[in-house]
């Protein structure tokens, strides 16, 4: 599935060249946009938890950390890697 990606192949000369060119992904302005994406994704989840908590009779709301975090980080990475905004709740993750 990963083909000749960075993590699945050995670090040789061609790896080095591609790795260097990919380094631009982590320049400061891009990092800033990545961070904004992450903040947005996290706030959507937090707001949903808060809403559920307010709705419940005893003021508590149980969350499954594993699936909730999966949803946050998967949405975040899809947006960062593909440039596709999936923060909308209509995408079930």
């Amino acid at each position, binding site marked *: *599935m*990963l*083909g*000749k*990606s*960075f*993590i*699945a*192949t*050995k*670090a*040789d*000369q061609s790896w080095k*060249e*591609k790795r260097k*060119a*990919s380094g*631009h*992904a982590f320049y*400061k*302005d*891009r*990092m*800033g*946009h*990545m*961070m*904004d*994406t992450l*903040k947005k994704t996290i*706030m959507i989840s*937090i707001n949903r938890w808060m809403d559920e908590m307010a709705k419940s009779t005893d003021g508590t709301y149980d969350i*499954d*950390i*594993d*699936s909730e*975090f*999966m*949803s*946050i*980080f*998967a*949405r*975040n*990475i*899809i*947006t*960062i*890697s*593909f*440039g*596709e*905004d*999936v923060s909308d709740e209509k*995408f*079930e*993750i």
Partner: protein
Amino acid sequence: MRKAPRTGEFYAKQVSMAVALLEVLNQLLENVAAKTQSLTQFMFYLAESKREFTPLDTAMFKNCEKIRSVVNDYVQDRKSGKRKASVANNSDILSLFLSNQEVFTDDFIVDELIDFFGAASVTTMNATQTIVAHFIKEPKSLQRVRSEFKKIVDECDKEDPSLNLKNLSRQELLDKVVTLDKIVEFDFLGCVISEAMRYMPPATESSNFEILEDFTSHGIRFQKGDEVVFVFDTLHRNSKQW
């Protein structure tokens, strides 16, 4: 939350790219958990099992092919301009790859996007869960992180009273205080993250590194062409080497 469909069911369906990616990720994780202890062992398992495929393997390989074709179609749509990035200033990784097509071939872009997705989402998810588990076990540590945040908010407020930080919502506070320039000031939180990475590294081993010339280090002779893997999991707990 949607429960992941069983292997095979997914393949028959037309699904969105996001769901398709997650599905393969789930299957990867299930396979790792069921048959092996680590991703490296899982790779070995895949290599060895080439002689004899179980129905599960075959279904998974088909899913991998499907995923690659879904991602490839998406990349082609972006290349032709049929779809556009919805991230500000085209700062997504695909835009970066497409802006340098001499280095990044189509195949490489597909490899790398799946790589980024799989590697980045599971690692950040696991690392964050380690940190949350730590905060639950050690409330004092959580208290310290909160005090640090409060201190930084107070400092920002003093520096620029026009920000009016006292009356902001959680979202506005996040936007104004947690910025790329400010996060370096979160010293204690930084230590917690580093320690979580040491104690429970989300990637237990490095990729393979190829030795480009003969050399000797710490009495160990490395030859050109040798491949080296760093095992962070044990290295991080070995006080003699770390």
